[in-house]
């Protein structure tokens, strides 16, 4: 097959077998290799169900899901695990080994990575996630934010070409959120495809390049974070909130022709530029201020 897409969902529909609950209806989505995609939407809109189709945990009731050129229909989750890493929302559901180190080795060993390679991957993950001090600890004895990092690291060591993160920043402090943020950037440099389900708009605004918006079992928007967050009617319709900094930008600099800022830096730059322009226009005042400070 000539260059298969990372993920290709065609006319997927999913109905939970226990009842008559339709979780996904007529969903089409294509994700290219190396893309960083955020999925947002209210609870119950179908975000998690959609991502569970990617690694075969759920199979579409109708339609197809093709990952790295492989149709998930005939494949077990274990077979898909080498392609798609799935980080669950609650790390407690994922961890069971006696030490953090064993936890990190479990995944790659399952997919047949050599012992030397495993040691190397674990060492790299320990370095990146800052887990050196807890390596010999029991995963349940470390604090929740660290446990969450262990959960993510245990999947990252499998080096899947596609990584799915379900609410990676829930319950995280500033420091661990920062590590997750860094991780997504680094994965992008490595060419890993990342799909991140999250309610953390600032995190998404900061790192993803594409946002998929879901509402009532369907994808209703799919664009860059700048376009999505600037679309006020869309935000209102889906009961979502753009990052505060974007909201401020929308009410201040955007009507003046400024950018839809996604980070405080962007807004600050624009304001500085405007102030600078004013400075040159009204030199005496600017000079006075400069002298005062």
């Amino acid at each position, binding site marked *: 097959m000539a260059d298969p897409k990372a993920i290709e969902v065609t006319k997927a529909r999913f109905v939970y*077998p*226990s009842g008559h609950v339709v979780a996904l209806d007529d969903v089409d989505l294509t994700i290219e290799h190396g893309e960083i995609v955020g999925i947002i939407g209210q609870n119950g809109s179908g975000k998690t169900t959609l991502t*569970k189709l990617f*690694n075969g*945990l759920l199979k579409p009731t109708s339609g197809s899901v093709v990952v790295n050129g492989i149709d998930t229909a005939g494949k*077990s*989750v*274990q077979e898909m*695990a*080498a392609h*798609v*890493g*799935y980080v*669950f929302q*609650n790390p*407690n*559901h*994922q*961890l*069971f*080994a006696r030490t953090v180190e064993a936890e990190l080795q*479990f*995944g790659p060993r*399952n*997919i047949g990575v050599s012992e030397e390679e495993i040691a190397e991957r674990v060492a790299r993950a320990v370095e990146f996630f800052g887990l050196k001090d807890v390596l010999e600890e029991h995963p*349940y004895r470390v604090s929740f934010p660290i446990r969450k990092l262990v959960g993510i690291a*245990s*999947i990252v060591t*499998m080096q899947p070409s596609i990584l799915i993160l379900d609410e990676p920043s829930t319950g995280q402090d500033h420091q661990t959120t920062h590590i997750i943020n860094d991780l997504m950037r680094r994965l992008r440099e490595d060419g890993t495809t990342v799909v991140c389900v999250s309610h953390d708009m600032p995190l998404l605004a900061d790192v993803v390049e594409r946002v998929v918006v879901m509402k009532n079992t369907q994808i209703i928007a799919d664009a860059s974070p700048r376009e999505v967050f600037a679309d006020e009617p869309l935000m209102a319709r889906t009961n979502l909130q753009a990052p505060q900094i974007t909201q401020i930008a929308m009410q201040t600099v955007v009507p003046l022709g400024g950018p839809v800022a996604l980070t405080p830096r962007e807004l600050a730059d624009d304001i500085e530029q405007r102030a600078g322009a004013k400075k040159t226009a009204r030199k005496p005042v600017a000079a006075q201020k400069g002298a005062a400070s």
Partner: protein
Amino acid sequence: MTMTAALPISMIPGDSVIHRINPIAKLIWVVGYIVLAFATQNILILGVMAVVAFLVGIIAGVVKPLLKAMIILIPIGSSLLALQIIAPAVERPWTQVGSIGPLALYGDGLYYGLVLLGRIVASLIIALVVVMTTHPSDLFTSLAKLKMPYTLNFMLAMTLQLIPVFQREFGIIMSAQKSRGMKGTGFSAVLPSFVPVFVGAIERVQQLSISLESRGFGSNGFKTSYRQVKVRARDWIIGGIGVIVIAGLSAYSIYRGLWSLSAEIQFSPEFVTGLFLVSALAFFGTIAVTIAYSFKKS
């Protein structure tokens, strides 16, 4: 699917006649079933009890989950019958009806095996149907009306409510392990998942007790319940019939010396031999399949 593969021992929402019966009336029947099952060795009574319980299950619309939960009876039932036929748990003399190699097969053994199985089947079906058709909170409220100590009542209701929670949790954990490429399907696959399930269970219970205390659990005074349970004339009748039928049959059965029909019912030698072979095969087959399954791929 993993999540639905677990044993469905929880309430199945519905609005059948059985769902609407007062929990106490249902409880009377469950307790009564168990009393009668052990008060008699009459295989006909036990058979009728099992059939009636199953019919109640059909009326309640819970046949599918009921049958699923009853799979557990295959190893239990087959081992029970096979062992009783070769070594009856009743007083000698035993009547030998045939033999396979060195094993002597006894007709009374088969009768007694069927009695034991009948007791288990009848009690299990009625208990499952009642659990599947009764909201735990309703049971809680009803028992409270009967002046059952609050703490004891609460423990019972909590246990029933936690079962589906743990089942769901177990499903999620199995998915998480599979997503990490865990191979195997039998015990070797399930084993690692027990750690998170138990740790989760203990953490949950600990958190629950703290949150209960912070919401005033254990304070004195009259407790009210969100769900109201009505006792209608119908419920009195159903409960009353239960008491009368069961007390009557139990008393008569005990009066008749447990009313065993082992002398009246004589099994043909072919029937005993055949049933022995089938149940022995089913028993060892179940064990073999389980072992083969757990070593497969692992």
